[in-house]
């Protein structure tokens, strides 16, 4: 059982290769078999090591931990492993038997899964870099997979911006290696905690922190380096968009948590800076989302704003609030995948992406609309749905500070507004559309919608059992919860009717605002310089 992480990494890689090579008719069922095997393995692994996660540490090849590559699991990484297995299940079921080039698509998809699981479990900085870069390359190919002009454009933008970010990450690794003589995360963490570096004068370590965070920020699409995300997620195939928005962006946030654990001993106060960055990300993401007309662009910009909300939670030393951020990662993965997959079905049926031109979804596709409404209720934070829980935890954590609370409230109103706008597609008379009867798509949507509802109601035992954190102070059966939600909805509706619907000039300006690649890099440099000034020089 000790070597289960290696199996988790290599089962998908191996099945991907076999699917690519063997030209048999039913070979794509191998992906499902591999997925089932991995799920069983992960559950058994979790059961074996519950309670003593320190035992999961092992070095590949049996060498000294400071020389070889080691893998380790803790509740955090294992919960991400389960989340990725679940998301890949959904995407596999959704796309099953629908793609023309099923085998090539499955090859990249399964390979990405192995690489992503490796990124979650590795305990070695350079290995992390290799996995990050490999993820970037595979995601680029998946974005460009449908071979339309805009997907090529988005792919190259994504590839170059992320590569420059990951190279920053590599420079950080270099500095750490020559300071500590190893690139093992645990060893570096222990060395920092042992007080080798307590004087607070170690510019090298602080500079390394800044560089690592710069790379991670690009991967996690934080302000101001989020510009690749709407381009990439707005044009990829819906299943891919769901996967990228739901999960792969969270790889950056996961690394944010891991790296801050590693630097815990270096006494770097990151809370204020990343709170501000998170708030800006959330507000600007929601601002752009409000102005968009394209259904998938709206969802992509909402990914940015939700990442901002997650960051607002994670940037706290307080365990409860940080847990709120973590929980929001999972919740967002569920409802954003649901929304993207549902939007994919609608777009395919209407052969149109514009919100204004799609009408009557409720009468035409009642089942899909119900699931979409569940996703919308979750993302806007309705009581009894999962988005409410994590947002409430974050809200309780920052209640003491007035301005922090109001930023979250503004973001909530913006989210409500843009989903009120999007819900226009449900109304209207029945339309003749392409009849698509895909059982797999329905099953995927249904599972995601149910898990949204389940997580929204059974959150207390789940967070108690997995992370050992008591969140029973959050409850949906309070009148304040409904009151808050209703206020947000009403304000959102007013805002929509008074401003957004009229499409004034300012809104058009924001919609047509486009960040060119060199400007994005310029902003990246600015961001790094600001971080350097904040973390190193001050």
């Amino acid at each position, binding site marked *: 059982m000790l070597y289960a992480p290696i199996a988790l990494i290599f089962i998908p890689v191996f099945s991907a290769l076999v699917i690519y090579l063997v030209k048999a008719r039913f070979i794509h069922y191998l992906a499902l078999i591999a997925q089932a095997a991995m799920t069983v393995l992960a559950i058994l692994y979790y059961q074996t090591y519950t309670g003593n996660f320190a035992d999961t540490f092992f070095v590949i090849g049996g060498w000294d931990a400071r020389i070889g590559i080691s893998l380790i699991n803790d509740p955090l990484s294992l919960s991400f492993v389960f989340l990725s297995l679940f998301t890949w299940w959904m995407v596999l079921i959704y796309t099953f038997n629908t793609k023309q080039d099923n085998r090539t698509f499955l090859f990249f998809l399964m390979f990405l899964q192995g690489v992503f699981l490796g990124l979650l479990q590795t305990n070695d900085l350079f290995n992390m870099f290799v996995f990050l870069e490999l993820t970037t390359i595979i995601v680029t190919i998946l974005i460009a997979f449908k071979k339309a002009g805009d997907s090529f454009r988005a792919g190259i933008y994504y590839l*170059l911006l992320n590569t420059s970010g990951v190279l920053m990450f590599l420079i950080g690794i270099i500095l750490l290696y020559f300071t500590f003589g190893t690139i093992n995360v645990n060893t570096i963490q222990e060395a920092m905690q042992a007080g080798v570096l307590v004087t607070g004068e170690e510019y090298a370590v602080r500079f390394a922190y800044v560089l690592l965070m710069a790379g991670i920020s690009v991967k996690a699409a934080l302000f101001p380096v989020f510009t690749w995300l709407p381009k990439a997620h707005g044009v990829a195939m819906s299943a891919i968009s769901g996967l990228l928005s739901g999960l792969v962006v969270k790889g950056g946030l996961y690394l944010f948590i891991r790296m801050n654990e590693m630097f815990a001993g270096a006494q770097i106060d990151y809370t204020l800076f990343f709170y501000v960055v998170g708030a800006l990300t959330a507000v600007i993401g929601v601002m752009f989302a409000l102005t968009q007309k394209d259904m998938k662009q709206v969802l992509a910009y909402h990914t940015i704003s939700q990442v901002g909300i997650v960051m607002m939670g994670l940037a706290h030393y307080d365990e409860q609030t940080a847990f709120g951020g973590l929980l929001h990662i999972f919740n967002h993965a569920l409802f954003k995948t649901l929304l993207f997959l549902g939007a994919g079905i609608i777009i395919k049926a209407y052969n149109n992406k514009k919100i204004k031109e799609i009408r009557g979804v409720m009468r035409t596709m009642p089942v899909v609309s119900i699931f979409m409404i569940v996703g919308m209720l979750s993302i806007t934070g309705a009581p009894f749905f999962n988005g409410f829980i994590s947002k409430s935890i974050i809200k309780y954590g920052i209640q003491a500070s007035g301005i922090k609370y109001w930023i979250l409230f503004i973001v909530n109103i913006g989210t409500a507004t843009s989903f009120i706008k999007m819900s226009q597609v449900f109304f209207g008379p029945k339309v003749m559309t392409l009849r698509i009867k895909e059982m797999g798509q329905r099953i995927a949507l249904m599972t995601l919608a149910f898990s949204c509802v389940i997580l929204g109601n059974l959150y207390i035992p789940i967070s108690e059992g997995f992370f050992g954190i008591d969140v029973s102070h959050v409850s949906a059966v309070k009148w304040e919860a409904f009151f808050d939600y209703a206020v947000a909805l009403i304000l959102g509706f007013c805002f929509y009717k008074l401003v957004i619907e009229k499409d004034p000039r300012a809104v058009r300006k924001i919609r047509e605002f486009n960040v060119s690649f060199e400007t994005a890099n310029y902003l*990246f440099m600015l961001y790094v310089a600001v971080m350097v000034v904040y973390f190193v020089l001050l």
Partner: protein
Amino acid sequence: MNPLLTFVVILIGFYGLSTSTNIIKSVFCVTIIESGVILLFLNLGNLDGGVIPVIGDTLPVGGIADPLPQALMITTIVIGSTVTALALMLCIKVFHHYGTVEWAEILSRESGK
């Protein structure tokens, strides 16, 4: 041999990345940064001096250059070449679709207009 001069190369690469308006130019700049990072790593690994990390039966007197950065940098070279190849292939496709390789012109063209 000075790490500071190597870092200047990396910064020039980032400068180029933030000012170049052409896709091909951006790919060139990524290559420059990549080479600079590799050189920086090797440079720091050789700070004490020493001989190449191929040893006989006994250890050389002056010590050896750090072999770990060298192994890691071979990986980085392979990664860099694949990124370049993929970026250039996408670039050809972008040119034949939009008729230009200038970032601003490409991004301003909405599809279907």
